[in-house]
């Protein structure tokens, strides 16, 4: 018994690593485990970065980095990994751009307490999701809202939306594209002002 080597990782949930991680596994992992962290990640970035216009870019950058890393090896603790990546990214940006963030990037330790516990993000998101979606829908420009309502709530295809609204299919596409982006931001709980659109 004593000579049995201890493998810590075996007691935890085993993750596949190496080339065995397929693209679709990364996709599923990203959608199931990373995206639900978006609200928390966004507030972390906002808290630690002065320029609000950079937040969406930083978030995307974190996503790209964690996905690239996951291709090589799935992290044991997604939440800790995502926030560590975000922190390192901010630190590198600070060094490179010689800018001073609002506060030193020190939140991670405070955050670290919660990193091991399963986060509340998922349930919190689910509870508020419909309300946020409804708010986002209400704030869309009227014609855009009409197109999105016809398409998403009444389930009409684009061609019919165009006929009902008496506008071109290209115009419908434009409204839907804008609506999709705004609603998707709302789904992930992004604060209203992370994105400004013309």
């Amino acid at each position: 018994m004593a000579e049995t080597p201890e493998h810590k990782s075996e007691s935890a949930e085993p993750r596949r690593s190496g080339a065995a991680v397929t693209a679709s596994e990364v996709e599923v992992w990203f959608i199931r485990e990373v995206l639900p962290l978006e609200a928390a990640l966004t507030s972390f970035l906002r808290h630690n970065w002065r320029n609000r216009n950079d937040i969406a870019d930083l978030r995307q950058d974190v996503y790209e980095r964690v996905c690239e890393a996951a291709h090589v090896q799935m992290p044991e603790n997604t939440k800790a990994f995502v926030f560590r990546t975000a922190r390192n990214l901010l630190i590198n940006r600070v060094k490179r751009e010689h800018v001073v963030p609002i506060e030193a990037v020190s939140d991670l330790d405070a955050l670290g307490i919660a990193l091991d516990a399963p986060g509340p993000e998922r349930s919190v998101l689910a509870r508020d999701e419909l309300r946020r979606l409804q708010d986002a829908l209400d704030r869309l420009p009227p014609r855009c809202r009409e197109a999105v309502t016809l398409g998403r709530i009444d389930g009409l295809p684009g061609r019919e939306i165009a006929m009902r609204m008496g506008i071109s299919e290209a115009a419908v596409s434009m409204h839907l594209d804008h609506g999709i982006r705004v609603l998707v931001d709302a789904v992930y709980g992004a604060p209203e002002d992370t994105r400004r659109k013309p």
Partner: protein
Amino acid sequence: MSEGSPARALSEIEAEAAAWVRRRNFWDFSAEDQAALDAWLAESISHRVAYWRMESGFARTEKLVALRDPKSEAAFAGRRFPVLMGIAAALALFAVIGLGARQFVMHPQDRVYSTPVGGHERIAFADGTKIELNTDTVLRARMTTDRRMIWLEKGEAYFQVKHDPAHPFTVMVGDRRVTDLGTAFLVRRDESRMELAVVQGRVRFDTGTARRPDTLTSGDVLTASGSTVSEAKRSKSALENELGWRRGVLVFDNTTLAIAAEEFNRYNRQKIIITDPAAARLAMVGTFPIHDVAAFTDAAQDVFKLRVENRGSEIVISR
């Protein structure tokens, strides 16, 4: 960005991702379109991440369907757009959707309507009849001046028929025939069996053989498989649960995990597989968004302490 390369602006990539999501969800999406999307995704991790985020976020906006008043039948097409329910709109709704038309003997008046896996389509006809197509469904409609004929080729559809004795409304399921007598009903066709549930009013059912026609009324559920026909009575709430898909939800009430998984698999490309027979027999109660496979497997994990392994195209549930 991270490499300091002149990467394209995120907003541009997000706009493209949103456009793909829009094209996939609101326009006919051909195999060539899919190939173009795959190529775009293969170009960079930025594209993939932006698209995954957009697509799965958009799937979750399905919740908005809840804003449609489920109790009011008028909520669908009628009430929201009373002015628009004229002939023009009805004509527009006749636009042929999708594939599969070649498989059938087509009459010039025939229109084929279809939905992909996970799809949900509503059709309103000029006579006031409404048909809702559930996931993976193909039906053909022939509306002429003297009669109204529907062939349910596969899948499931909910019919709300504007009754008109002068213009009988008939749904053909293979050689079985359902004729409206003033009603709303649900018909589902699998490979080997059909189910007919009368939600409101009456329908007549006959098999095209010597067997005498049955008249079914509200709450009656008929199952036909081979030459066997059986009938049962179902409560109003059980029927409402069965129609949950119209609101974008699956409702389970003392349903075994096996059946619940089978239901999810009808709507989603990622399939749930239960390897343990005892686990498959566990019964559950709950309402889930139709595309939220994760919510279901989380419940299986949390409530029943089962193992859930996500393998990409499938999720395996075991002990």
